[in-house]
């Protein structure tokens, strides 16, 4: 303050004198050092004395003489800088004469110690504030656990004796302040002996007037040294959190809360939720705040080679935390809770988390399914009811160590305990070709399953001294076990044969084990700056043991031999490949070839230790798989990608089992021990452009699959006396079939920042051959979807959107063209967010969905309207109250229509319809008092 008052006076004085003084002046002088030595070529600056703005600068000559000719005659702050010297500042008043000769301007050298040790060796910033010299203490390395005293011993110009007494530039330091305040009384050693060195960011040493002169206000000339220790930012911690409680009519409720604490190295978070409004897990925002710096898991994929290793994906596989992935069917009651810890000091990253979640699903649905074969059809109408309770405990850890700048090690482990208790009642009503009732089947099944899974992996990456040469190795271990029982019961009634009723009871014990070890190697060699050569090897061995013992409770729990199986299956996978890559200025092209060897070994018996049912099965597959990808970035934000792969996927374990699954006797599922892998040519293309000036984007892309060998599920439909119409599916390989998908999108403003439009389109077509009762049927799917929307933001208080969606799906069956289907789903939607008064918000959305299938005269409309009002309370908007109504028309129901192979199916499931809810939320950081346009993460 005093300084500013002085400046103000100076300016005022300057203005008053302006009349007398010449308007222009020449300022000159000679810079020399305090001991009289010459300082050649010094830099001399004229600054505005009020804010230090640079007005003019010059350089002195070899003798240090400088001059500013013909500059305005106003107050200046003259500043001299010279390497190895303290910057000198002088206030200049307007000069009464035309030449203001400053004579000798003496500058003071910086002590060699400060310059060499502090500035040069420790790379610390030296700040000069009057007589204070301050520097960055964190630049001086001391062992972890050292005290401030240990650190001070290393600082130049500071001496600490055996008792801890401190001297700065030879003078005793009488006072030590921490962040400008005295630390536990007057003893300067209290702070230096007790504080950890790692907590200090800066050390300042300055002259302080003695106690005597502080009291009297008279400068007694007895200055003493004082020291101030500034605490590091990161030791100032942060915390945030939210809590919400909501109740509604019809016993609806929801609660959730999370709390986070963090500093620059550590993050700790807890989260908990519970509800019966179909929120089965966390949303993206919750996930990010829960996982913190471990939200994104890049370079975690240890499966090197084509496709793997270089991609950036979200949170590993995201399986450690349950996401809200409710599919719109049924009612759920959910609970979940987790705790997460992250440590990151750039060299070491550690993440550990635990999550528990449970979901109980109650699902009542009706399904209509019509199945076609050569010259006939049958249909079944089902009513089913399912109660399904799932509980999971999940522990996951990730550790990353930057061993040095060329070596990184990543270790990950995850373990999960799951419990599943489900009961399932189904009533199926079968009609034959002439729409005559055939039979009805009632099923009452119960399942109990406990399972455990461990996944672990380690990745090591090394970069060689030669730029671009690198090596990586990975190892993985996965282990899983499950133990379950299935209690099956069915009653079958036949309408034609008046009295026949067939009852089946069955008890299955399932005991499965799986173990996998895997490893990959990758070596990259640069041929030049543009050309790279990559070689990789992948290995994995998977051992699976499946033991299913089916017994009949009606007959003394006797084993049902035809349905019991123990099988031991080993899959050995070896792949070696090499590729050449070109990368330069936006063009990236790669071509490579791999040899892939797959060996499947299986042996089957009725139970463990019993004789084999068949000879052990050994199947080997050798494929050469090429890979091509090409991407080019055109100037001005346009990208093109092209790719080709030959994909070989091994059969699923379930598809290989030699003994059928008849949990539903009318739908028998058989395996095929002779099943080969699925092989397909896969091609993709996309091109997109973004225009930052008009804020618009457009893109188009396509994928095409051509199958060499496709795994399809052949069907045999037959009338079985005790079952009725029985469908048996059995996987097999067929050649042929394809899949094509073309998509495009565009997003552009009609009125910049006010009105934007988006269009998305999608065309897909596919052909799938399969056998139905030994006759080849080719099912063709052709569909297109158009979605368009407008977003209107007339002011910061209002955002509106309207949109529509058309979805056509045509299915044709070569086996029976009269059954061709045209499935239509249409929808329109409108939404609004409106801040209608300060801190008051109204949000609403309306969707109208239309479901059609003319073949069955199916026609159902579902309008859904939600609305809510919320209010923020408190100075910092930390409290929010909300009143919401969901599904005002009480019409919500889930409808899905689809057709594949030789059947069409339509599901209608009940779910949560109209309810009201009142909620109160508290957010430590406060809620934003405006409507959000975008979500940026």
């Amino acid at each position, binding site marked *: 303050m005093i300084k500013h008052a002085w400046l103000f006076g100076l300016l005022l004085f300057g203005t008053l004198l302006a009349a007398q003084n010449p308007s222009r002046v020449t300022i000159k002088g000679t810079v020399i050092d305090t001991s009289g030595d010459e300082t050649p070529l010094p830099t001399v600056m004229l600054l505005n004395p009020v804010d230090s703005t640079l*007005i003019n600068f010059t350089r002195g000559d070899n003798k240090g003489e400088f001059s500013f000719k013909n500059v305005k005659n106003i107050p200046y702050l003259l500043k001299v800088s010279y390497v190895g010297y303290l910057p000198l500042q002088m206030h200049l008043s307007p000069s009464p004469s035309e030449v203001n000769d400053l004579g000798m301007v003496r500058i003071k050298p910086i002590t060699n110690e400060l310059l060499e040790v502090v500035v040069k060796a420790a790379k610390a910033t030296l700040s000069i504030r009057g007589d204070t010299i301050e520097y960055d203490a964190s630049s001086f390395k001391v062992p972890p656990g050292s005290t401030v005293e240990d650190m001070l011993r290393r600082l130049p110009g500071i001496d600490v004796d055996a008792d801890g007494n401190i001297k700065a530039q030879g003078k005793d330091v009488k006072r030590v302040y921490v962040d400008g305040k005295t630390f536990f009384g007057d003893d300067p050693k209290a702070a230096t002996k007790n504080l950890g060195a790692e907590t200090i960011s800066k050390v300042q040493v300055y002259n302080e007037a003695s106690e005597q002169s502080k009291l009297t206000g008279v400068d007694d000339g007895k200055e003493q040294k004082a020291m101030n220790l500034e605490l590091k930012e990161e030791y100032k911690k942060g915390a945030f959190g939210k809590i919400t409680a909501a109740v509604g009519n019809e016993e609806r409720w929801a609660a959730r809360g999370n709390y986070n604490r963090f500093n620059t190295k550590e993050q700790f978070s807890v989260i908990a939720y519970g509800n019966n409004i179909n929120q089965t897990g966390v949303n993206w925002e919750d996930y990010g705040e829960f996982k913190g710096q471990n939200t994104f898991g890049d370079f975690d994929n240890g499966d090197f080679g084509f496709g793997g290793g270089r991609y950036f994906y979200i949170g590993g596989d995201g399986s450690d935390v349950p996401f809200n992935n409710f599919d719109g069917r049924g009612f759920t009651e959910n609970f979940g809770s987790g705790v997460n810890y992250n440590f990151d000091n750039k060299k070491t990253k550690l993440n550990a988390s635990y999550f528990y979640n449970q979901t109980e699903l109650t699902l009542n649905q009706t399904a209509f399914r019509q199945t076609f074969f050569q010259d006939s059809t049958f249909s079944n109408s089902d009513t089913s009811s399912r109660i399904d309770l799932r509980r999971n405990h999940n522990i996951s850890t990730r550790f990353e160590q930057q061993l040095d700048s060329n070596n990184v090690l990543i270790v990950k482990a995850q373990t999960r305990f799951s419990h599943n208790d489900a009961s399932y009642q189904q009533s199926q009503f079968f009609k034959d070709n002439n729409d005559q009732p055939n039979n009805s089947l009632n099923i009452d099944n119960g399942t109990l399953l406990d399972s455990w899974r461990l996944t672990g992996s380690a990745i090591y990456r090394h970069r060689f001294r030669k730029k671009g040469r690198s090596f990586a190795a990975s190892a993985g271990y996965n282990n899983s076990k499950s133990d379950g029982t299935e209690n099956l019961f069915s009653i079958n009634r036949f309408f034609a044969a008046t009295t026949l009723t067939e009852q089946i009871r069955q008890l299955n014990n399932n005991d499965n084990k799986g173990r996998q070890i895997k490893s990959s190697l990758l070596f990259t060699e640069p041929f030049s700056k543009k050309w790279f050569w990559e070689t990789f090897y992948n290995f994995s061995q998977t051992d699976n043991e499946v033991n299913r013992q089916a017994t009949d409770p009606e007959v003394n729990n006797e084993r049902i031999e035809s349905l019991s199986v123990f099988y031991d299956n080993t899959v050995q996978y070896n792949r070696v490949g090499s590729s050449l890559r070109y990368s330069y200025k936006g063009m990236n092209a790669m071509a490579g070839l791999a040899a892939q060897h797959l060996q499947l070994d299986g042996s089957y018996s009725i139970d463990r230790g019993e004789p084999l049912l068949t000879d052990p099965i050994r199947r080997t597959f050798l494929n050469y798989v090429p890979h091509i990808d090409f991407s080019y970035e055109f100037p001005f934000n346009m990208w093109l990608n092209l790719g080709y792969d030959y994909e070989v996927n091994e059969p699923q374990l379930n598809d290989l089992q030699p003994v059928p699954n008849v949990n539903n006797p009318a739908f028998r599922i058989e395996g095929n021990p002779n099943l080969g892998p699925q092989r397909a040519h896969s091609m993709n293309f996309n091109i997109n452009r973004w225009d930052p000036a008009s804020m618009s984007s457009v893109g188009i892309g396509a994928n095409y699959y051509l199958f060499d060998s496709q795994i399809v599920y052949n069907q045999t439909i037959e009338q079985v006396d005790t079952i009725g119409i029985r469908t048996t599916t059995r996987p097999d390989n067929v050649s042929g079939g394809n899949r094509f998908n073309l998509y495009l999108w565009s997003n552009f403003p009609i009125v910049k920042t006010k009105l934007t439009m988006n269009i998305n389109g999608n065309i897909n077509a596919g052909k799938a051959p399969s056998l139905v009762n030994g006759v080849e049927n080719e099912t063709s799917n052709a569909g297109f979807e158009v979605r368009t929307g407008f977003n209107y933001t007339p002011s910061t208080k209002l955002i509106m959107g309207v949109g529509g969606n058309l979805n056509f799906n045509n299915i044709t069956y070569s086996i029976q063209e009269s059954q061709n289907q045209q499935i239509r789903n249409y929808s329109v939607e409108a939404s609004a967010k409106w801040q209608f008064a300060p801190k008051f918000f109204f949000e609403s959305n309306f969707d109208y969905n239309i479901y059609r299938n003319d073949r069955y005269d199916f026609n159902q409309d579902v309008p859904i309207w939600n609305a809510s009002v919320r209010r923020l309370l408190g100075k910092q908007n930390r409290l929010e109250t909300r009143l919401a109504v969901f599904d005002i028309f009480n019409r919500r129901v889930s409808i899905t229509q689809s057709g594949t192979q030789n059947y069409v199916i339509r599901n209608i499931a009940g779910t949560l319809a109209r309810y009201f809810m009142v909620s109160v939320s508290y957010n430590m950081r406060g809620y934003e008092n405006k409507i959000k346009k975008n979500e940026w993460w």
Partner: protein
Amino acid sequence: MKRTIATLILAISLASVGAQEMEGVIRYLVVHNWTKKMAAVDYISKQQRERISYMWGSRSEWKMYTTMYITPTETKYEDSEERAEPDDEGYSWRQDVYYIKRNYQTNTMHDVIQMLGKTYVIEDSLHAPDWKILNDLKEVAGHICMKASWVDTIKQQKIIAWFAMDIPISAGPERFFGLPGLIMEVDVNDGGMLITADKIDLKTLTTSDLALPKKLKGKKISDADYIALLEKHMKEKREAEEPPFWGIRY
């Protein structure tokens, strides 16, 4: 009050012996940190910016090299082909056109900049910003530097520059210049972008070192036009509540 410094620079460069000696190539390491860039976008809610920083943490850094060819009168600044990101060696991005050519003798700029989907050639005289000179010293690449600051009100950037006390050339990386010494380090928005000279190679330059690539085409505009374009873009992004740094050089 304000006065073009260029005449003075001219006077210095002619008078100074030391300046004549300084000729060569400087490599700058540029570290971008997008959470820190986001942290400076004041119209995106504080909650969102804090969440971004909490989730991205140390993953948000991106490094590159730039090169400045320097003579006592002329400089040329451009993106280097050399990659600073080792993990990036698998993928090559196209570099936007960006050449900053300055002549401190004639006090002119000839900058070729790709911005908002177009290439512009900015030809104008040099107008130095209002640097404030501060009292801190530190060493960058072997030179003792002094601190200066400036607030770019158009791009909403808080700039801290460190200039060498012993290299009397008023040039700097990117479009920064106008200090009594060569700018060795620039910190934009508290670490949003940190540019540090990390290699100085003194050698005699040829005319081709200072020449721009031949096939550069672009719309000729003045410095004021360029600022007007930036201002319009910043205003639109503010209204759209989108981060402003996509489509323009940070």
